[in-house]
């Protein structure tokens, strides 16, 4: 027992994949962990599946049951406009699921399915349940998202190896020909990021619609410059007959859906990403993607458990992530730090860093619809079932959001939600991947939002840069001029800029 407990404590307070104990000790470890985490999960049992562990007198789940998900969230319980109580209840369920260390009794494992986001069968069962490369590579979402707290970023030790999951699905090498190694992003302010992306997508698409309308009316081709919230996304050419040449579009996909998540900017929504990650990292397959509707099977991964994650479960996970407070800019007590930060902020602007790391983007509404308006089939869409809307304004942190002169919320993400080429011939270290991802070339990445940067070392999409200085030095490509300006600064100026970046923290 002691050895098991020590193992738990040593590794970030959570059971790590490598923490193997003899069989009889698993039960004990579960008991102890359940106790430590103060009952992560609800206590109602499914008598159909939990008979063996049901309490003999009450029929409820026994405390020693080896499951992390004792009941699924029912999406129908959270429909329509949610009030604060319902929202908090949904968030709480999401928090439990985010921390839940899924077991095989919950459905963890995907012996006959790959990590691909499109349900894909293996040709033969995987050789091992867990693998640090091809997955499963984590027990819980919180296993990786925990710096500085749960929901945060991750250490280099919990990098993930991103593969499309269609070929070489059992790769057991970190060789970059098989996967892109990625550091774990933090999720604070993620709800606001998604809302910004939705509004910007709507703006971009409306501009396309206007261009087409003008072309139709005038009978002439119309080329427009695309922009949303002040961020330029290149041009498109509209023809009078409804054709559009998207060749000039930059920094966003040709469908003009701004996908704000992942280093690469290839995931549309928290919901989509959550479903992907549950399958990839845990082998927990969401019914809305892997269920019988899209695969013909309720148990697509053939682990003996159907419909492992309900639509309501995903909604809860989304709600918890969307409700995470945005990082903030702290005001140091140390007056030297204060002065340095003020100067550093100025140097940041002078070097042109703010061309991509925009200090804020304006957001019109805090109404968060889940499912959202932009997801495609395989992620629940509006009109499919259980549409919910809740206002992030119900959350305490919303009162701290500043507004601009138009009454719009100023979201201080220090990003532009746009993809850029970030490496060049001389400064190439951020172009170190061999595989493109979802049509995005290997040297192109979404501008990393700087909010929370002081709390989320290490840096770079691989997490292989230990200081802010190193990551600034590594900026090439479209950021080369700013990087060169940074290199041209005096040591004091550089120091001051770092001082300011160190004020961008996650304060739970």
């Amino acid at each position, binding site marked *: 027992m002691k050895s098991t407990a020590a193992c738990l404590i040593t590794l970030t307070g959570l059971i790590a994949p490598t923490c193997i104990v003899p069989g009889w000790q698993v039960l004990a470890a579960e008991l102890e962990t359940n106790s430590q985490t103060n009952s992560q999960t609800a206590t109602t049992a499914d008598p159909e599946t939990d008979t063996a562990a049901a309490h003999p007198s009450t029929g409820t789940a026994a405390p020693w049951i080896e499951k992390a998900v004792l009941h699924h969230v029912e999406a129908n319980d959270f429909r329509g406009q949610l009030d604060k109580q319902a929202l908090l209840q949904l968030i709480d369920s999401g928090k439990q699921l985010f921390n839940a260390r899924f077991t095989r009794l919950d459905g963890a494992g995907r012996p006959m399915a790959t990590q691909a986001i499109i349900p894909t069968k293996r040709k033969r069962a995987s050789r091992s349940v867990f693998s640090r490369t091809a997955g499963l590579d984590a027990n819980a979402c919180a296993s990786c998202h925990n710096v500085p707290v749960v929901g945060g970023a991750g250490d280099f030790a919990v990098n993930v190896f991103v593969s499309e999951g269609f070929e070489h699905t059992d790769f057991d090498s970190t060789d970059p020909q098989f996967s892109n190694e990625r550091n774990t992003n933090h999720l604070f302010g993620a709800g606001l990021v998604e809302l910004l992306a939705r509004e910007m997508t709507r703006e971009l698409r*409306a501009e396309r619609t206007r261009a*087409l309308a003008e072309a139709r009316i005038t009978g002439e081709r*119309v080329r427009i410059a*695309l922009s949303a919230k*002040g*961020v330029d996304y290149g041009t498109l050419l509209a023809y009078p007959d409804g054709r*559009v040449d998207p060749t000039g579009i930059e920094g966003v996909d040709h469908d003009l859906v701004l996908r704000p998540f992942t280093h690469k900017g290839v995931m549309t929504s928290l919901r989509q990403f959550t479903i992907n990650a549950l399958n990839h990292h845990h082998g927990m397959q969401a019914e809305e993607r892997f269920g019988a*509707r899209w695969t013909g099977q309720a148990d697509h991964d053939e682990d003996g458990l159907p419909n492992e994650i309900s639509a309501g479960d995903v909604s809860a996970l989304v709600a918890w992530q969307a409700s995470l407070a945005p990082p903030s800019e702290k005001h140091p007590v140390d007056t030297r730090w204060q002065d340095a930060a003020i100067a550093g902020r100025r140097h940041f602007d002078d070097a042109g860093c703010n061309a991509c790391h925009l200090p804020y983007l*304006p957001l019109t509404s805090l109404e968060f619809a889940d499912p959202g308006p932009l997801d495609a089939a395989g992620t629940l869409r509006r009109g499919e079932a259980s549409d919910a809307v809740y206002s992030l304004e119900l959350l305490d942190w919303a009162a701290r959001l500043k507004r601009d002169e138009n009454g719009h919320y100023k979201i201080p993400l220090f990003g532009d939600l746009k993809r850029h080429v970030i490496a060049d011939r001389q400064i190439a270290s951020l172009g170190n991947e061999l595989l493109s991802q979802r*049509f995005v070339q290997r040297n192109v990445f979404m501008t990393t939002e700087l909010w929370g940067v002081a709390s989320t070392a290490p840096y770079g999409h691989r997490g292989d840069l230990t200081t802010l200085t190193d990551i600034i030095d590594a900026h090439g490509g479209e950021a080369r001029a700013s990087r060169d300006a940074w290199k041209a600064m005096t040591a004091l100026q550089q120091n001051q800029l770092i001082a300011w970046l160190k004020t961008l923290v996650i304060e739970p």
Partner: protein
Amino acid sequence: MNALAYAACVTLLCLLTSTAAAQDTAQDTAHDTSLDTAQNIAHDTSPVTSQDTARKAAYTGDIPVLIEEAQAAGIQHRYAGPWEYFVGGGVSTFDCNQDRLPDIYLAGGQAEAGLFINRSRTAGPLQFERSADTTLSLERVTGSYPLDIDNDGFQDLVILRVGENLLFRGGPDCRFSPANLSWNFDGGNAWSTAFSASFEADRHFPTLAIGNYVDRSAPGSPWGTCRANELHRPADTTERSTVPPDYSDPLPLSPGYCALSMLFTDWNKSGVDALRITNDRQYYRGGQEQLWQLDGGRYPRLFGSAEGWQPLVIWGMGIAEADLDADGYPEYALTSMGDTKLQVLDVRQAIEENRPSYEDMAWNRGATAHRPYTGDDLKPSTGWHAQFEDMNNDALLDLFITKGNVESMNDFARFDPDNLLLGTFDGSFSEQGLQSGVALNRRGRGASITDFNADGLLDIVVVNRGDNVSLFRNAGMAGPEGPRPGGNWLKIALVQNGANRNAIGARLSVKTGNHVQTRRLQVGGGHASGSAGFVHIGLGVGERATVRVQWPDGQWSAPFKLFANHHIIIERDRDTLIQWFPNATTQETVPAANPVSSPHTHGVAKHVSGN
């Protein structure tokens, strides 16, 4: 011969005929309980039936909600006439006014054919307006097929008739002009019921094949008096860009066995089309299904049994082609009276010996559709038009079959609803006609499946004998609270310069994850019905697809990376694609005039118009 006499003859012949197909049908009818009452199903213990029942019970995919709204859409049109019009009844769907929405040309039989212009709003109810131009308001039309014969960028129309067949040259705004004379096309005086076209190698214009039915003037007609079919090859021209098509030297394709559908097909993945013909055993003597070799423009030659062609005798009514397993070798659905065939090539024989040997897999895959799936009428069905498409966008091809008694054949089902066989993940099909809404009491004939309102969901138009057409709008997938969105989709149009502007014969390879689908652009098949325009591909949960084009000359394109739920135009020799958006305001809501401002604003959309 009047209708009743004809029906009596047909019935008698049906009872006396003893062929493998008839036996199949009888056996199938005897033991099949696929759509019997629950009681019958419960008592049946045959393994096949159990599988079949399980297949139906287990269907978990999306079922499209198909709403019949022809009348509300402004279409009032029926196919009618005496026994010459028991067969035929085709429809063409193609864009004749350059708005990229499919318009409809409907055969009328003895009555006038009608051209209906598509006025539907994007994703809205279907709406059509009958063309005031009466150029195409012809009588004695059995069917039609659209294609751009003269390579001018406008769809032309091949009109099959009881009597002279007609070619019409298309122009802007749905204007058509007769072209038989200018293109030296002899329309003959046959009873034509089938058509296909192919751009043979090194020819600037398409080769046209016309299938004929009974020769009514021959002694003993109609029995054993099938008329020869026709092959109209264009004359080789040297000044190709200026010289019009010249079809002055047609070839007979003899023997003819009363063709009811034909299709140029690259059956062996050779890049050279052969001509597949399905024939109606009702009238031929010693006939069978046919496959003509046309290699290199040589004189047509039939595949025989020595070359692996296995005689197949059915009441062939319609052909649908699809490459169900994406191996490049197409499968064929052949409609008939009784069971539909699903022919799968013996690939080994094809590769090693170039033998077109096929096995019927319809029963194994639940695609026989041999009798009504609902109602009390247990007699065999009569199948006509067949078409593979993905009606629910789940990335699996479905099979739609029109059904309908010839006229009053007592040994065949009177209530004979159209079939919607939805593809399943195990490669079989599941009948969902009743659940989808297509199970109407009408006698279907030709049909076309296309997206009339540009919402990415395929709609269906069916020509019915003696009744108004059925126009099914696909309203989405059946859900617990009404129609809901289906899978993702793509619609792709191909364009190339010079000859064969619409790349007939090209092959699309569409990859989502490890799943590959293929489509081939063809003219022909079905039952007297054709279509032109965007090719539709369902993508299921794939939100991106990698698409390659094998152009008609065999050259492959570079891969195109496409995002789902868009109309895409791929132009040959251009590395990038073009998107197309229908003219509607339902796609995106235009925001208020004062978009969100930003301290970083570099100006809202700036116009540099006209460049």
